């Protein structure tokens, strides 16, 4: 199993600003993932973050908008840049350890 924490748990932000979300895992993992869950919808993969390499982004997501850092095997950050109300979502990180374990999510509201 894996214990994953995310900070902040929720935030309300003004449009045009940026928010950095932190994801901490209780033990080392190679693969970490960031997902977005827009209101009332399913989860969509934003990017895969492996330590020591650039994150790999899915179609429709770009590094300038969602820069990701992966400085070590237990930590990652996702920044939501130049936010607009359309970025209001729950952002979740997950790790793969024969199955994916998810963090509790960060609920972001952009006004």
């Amino acid at each position, binding site marked *: 199993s894996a214990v994953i924490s995310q900070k902040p748990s929720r935030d309300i932000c003004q449009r045009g600003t940026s928010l950095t979300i932190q994801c901490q895992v209780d033990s080392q993992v190679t*693969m970490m*993932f960031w*997902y977005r869950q827009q209101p009332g*919808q*399913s*989860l*969509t*993969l934003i990017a*895969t973050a492996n330590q020591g390499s650039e994150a790999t982004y899915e179609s429709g997501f770009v590094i300038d908008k969602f820069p990701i850092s992966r400085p070590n095997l237990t930590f990652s950050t996702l920044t939501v840049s130049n936010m607009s109300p359309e970025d209001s979502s729950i952002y*979740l990180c*997950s790790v*793969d350890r*024969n*199955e*994916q*374990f*998810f*963090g*509790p*999510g960060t609920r972001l509201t952009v006004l």
Partner: protein
Amino acid sequence: AQSVTQLDSQVPVFEEAPVELRCNYSSSVSVYLFWYVQYPNQGLQLLLKYLSGSTLVKGINGFEAEFNKSQTSFHLRKPSVHISDTAEYFCAVADTGRRALTFGSGTRLQVQP
């Protein structure tokens, strides 16, 4: 690339009745299959997974699913539901190499007394 189709967006059912939530997938490579549950205002919890072996998989809370390769399906079943099973259920697939999950659109199970 993979895709997942959950045919039913909402499934209303009476308490103690059986339920089946349908999931079909498409993929050009071998996949792992998962069902997750999301209770209101809570995170995702893994119900069960198929990696290999027996095609009938048993999970938590009395749920089970059967992998049917020829029909590319992974339907979730429970013989008798409880009010507490009311939640959103997501089917997901991951290719065996890349491991990132592709989710279906979700099925809202509403158990009525």
